[in-house]
């Protein structure tokens, strides 16, 4: 329904390689990649997001994490955290 539509819209952006939706425990709910890769991404990025969130909170308790972007040589991983879910998008900023 709407969920599908939003995810499709994000997936249709230029250069997007994969989209993953992860729940609060780090278990992927919805993905466009194969299972093993998804599970790997979900586990690692979930931990990293927790760490980033706690870092931001420690520095300023009134602050909170809104977005996390990891830029690497080959592509960019973007994580949008929320209270219960995590949206991970991998994009190739192609030149």
């Amino acid at each position, binding site marked *: 329904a709407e*969920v599908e539509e939003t995810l499709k819209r994000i997936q249709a952006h230029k250069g997007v390689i994969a989209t993953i939706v992860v729940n609060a425990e780090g278990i992927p709910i919805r993905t466009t990649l194969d299972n093993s890769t998804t599970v790997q991404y979900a586990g690692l990025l979930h931990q990293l997001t927790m760490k980033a969130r706690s870092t931001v909170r420690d520095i300023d308790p009134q602050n909170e994490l809104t977005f996390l972007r990891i830029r690497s040589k080959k592509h960019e991983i973007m994580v*949008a955290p929320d209270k219960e879910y995590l949206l991970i*998008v991998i994009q190739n900023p192609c030149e």
Partner: protein
Amino acid sequence: IGHPEIFPLVFTTKTQEIFNCRVDEDVTEENCFKLIKKEDIIQDLKTRATISDFHPVKKVVLEYPGEELLVVFDAKFQYGQNFYFVASEEAKENLLKPPETAEEKDDDKEEENREETLEVHPYKPPVHKPWVSLGSEKEVEEESVKDTVTKIKYMVSRVRRKFGAPITFTDKNASHVKDSYVECTSYQDKTFSIKMLEKDVGVQMVPKVREASTQTKWTYPKNAATQYFPRQLSNEEKEESLSSEKLKEFLTSVHLRMEIALQQNEIMNAFFDDWKALAEDESSSGGKPDVYLKAYQSFTDLRYLKDRTISCICWHPTIYGIIAVSARVWLSYEEQVNLSDKSLLQQSVILFWSFFDPIHPQLMLECPEDIYCFQFSPSDPNIIAGGCINGQVVLWDISQHEEKLQNAKTVADGIKVTAVNMVNASILNILQYIYMSPSLMQVQQSSTEPPLVRYCAVSSIQNSHKKPVTDIHWLPDYFEDNRMGATFENRAEICVQLVTCSPDCSILFWDIPATKLPEQPSSEKVKEEEIFCMPPDVPDTFKHLDLCWKPLIKINLHKSDTNTEYSPVRISLKELHYHYKTSEKVLSLNTLEVPAKDNPYTEMSTPSSKNLKVLENISTDFFVGTEDGEIVYSNWKMEIDSDSAKPHTQKYTIHTETINTLQRSPFFKDIVLSVGGRNFAIWKEGVTNGPILQTSCSAGRYTAGQWSLTRPGVFFIGRDDGNIDIWDLLRKTHEPSHFQNISESTITFISPWIASPKQHFLAVSDDLGVLHVLEICQTLGHPSRNEHANVLDYFEREVKYLKYCEQEFQEYQEFQ
């Protein structure tokens, strides 16, 4: 001191007698109080005046309000003298009474202590008393800092009339002064030498550092392993969470942020460092080396290469430092025509040289005739195919000598191998009497001779070319042709097919079949004899082909308009792009694994041709360079429809003499370099108007050409005066960017090679039979950053320019 009412007095004996306070008689220690009337004291004062004991306290006595004054005998000299005089009534009362009350108080206190009752003293607010100096103000005064010397004040004034007066400046030449520098120097003034006697210094305490260490208990480490698998949700759970409201809310709140981030990336790459990108291009064209091609080694052999010219050079594809050279006798034109009259006095060979031994060749391949060209098989470097001067195709198998080539270090190694050959030689000596062909094994008996390898198979003379085979190539291993010319996939994945061309106007495709061909019994017998007579140390890999090898397909190149034919000298197939399998890895020089299995060619079995896939996308077009200097572009696939029996061809005439090089660029599959006569040209497949680049006639003749293996826009051209021209298309397109003289005679063949990522070699051979190996310097070997894209750009621009020119020409013609 202390009590202002107490005045210590000295009573002399006379005074004591007068006032009846004689010591130890009237006044004792217990009874120390004596009351004296005031009048008596005044009388005494009058009578005795200054010698009276009361004289110091005369004023106090006169002011005393009461009648009687108290004098106390001070036995213990408490106040400094033996008597003291109390000046006030209250003090008198206190002194008379408190000793009594004090005694009583002490008794009371003792009683109280026994009873242990708390006595609460009523709170008495402090009573304001006048400040009693106890001497502290003196200390304060001592510590305070005061000026010991009054400060000096100076007042400087100037005469009023001098203010505002016009000022005249004068010039002084700075150079007249020493060092061209004027300053007010500082000097030591003797009047102001103050010696520092005392200094105020601050001191800070620092805690002392002490080292301490502890040791924890060391329990020996144990390996522990856990195995885990990730938690996953079942499909129903996934469905459930996907349809939950929370997910919807989450996505609505999050997707906006995500889209902004995605769009940011699409707009521009924020991390692209333009400055750095600019810098890399510049650094490559920076320092120019003096010599682009450094002489590395040169090889020549006086015995086998005397009066010969080198016709072809080939690097060994896998073993580092091995290069093979084929030589042929330099013949004049008449002699070439009358080949049959020529008798070879000396055997023609292919020599294998190694970098480590520049004097002795490592291996020699015996050839039936002079070899014009040869190639290593890409799938198995031990198989070599060569084309002879009489039109035959020859095959060699050097797998026995592979190890020797790998270990080709010093001459000492050669001794081991020749021991084996000695054994063979003894057997052969017996055979020699039976077999009439000249035995060349005698040559091997001395230890400095390189081993000679006989050829395994020669094609049948009737079915070969009629003229010298000028070009030979192995077809790549992913397809093979059948008799009809259709391409099939090659299951065996080894190179099994050859293509040769010759000026007798034909191109032949040869096939190396796996098993023996079915033969007539009679010819079999003949063959058996021949096979039997072959020396036993020749591998029998291609025994079945020897002297009966026939080509698979024969293509006659007819000219489309006239009834004559083309005479191809060089051929270049589109699909000829194969890379030797280990050419890109860094070769470990002496530890190449010898393959455990035998020569793959012996294990081949004919696949059933029914199941082979027909490959549609293999291009069957090819370029041919002819003896007359024409470039022909044609297709070998036979057309199914019969009306166009001749294949579609294109012909270009630019060169005036025989084409000696036709080579595809290793980077661009459709770019071809053709060298012939006094000019050379670059062609693009598909562009039919003409060459993309064509040089003007040059003074000398171009005799050889090759693309560089590492840089897309660089190629090497050899000339007849022994120079190598290095052309760089990105620098200059009208003349070579660099040229270098290599030898005195004509360059006959050039072959570049990448031996290791740091070492790029260029092998150049000349007419005198000398092989020069040069090292290509780094700037010439390593491409700059966007070189591939730039060269591609250049070619596209040239194509566009060509099209534009043609359009203009057409318009001009129409206008006419």
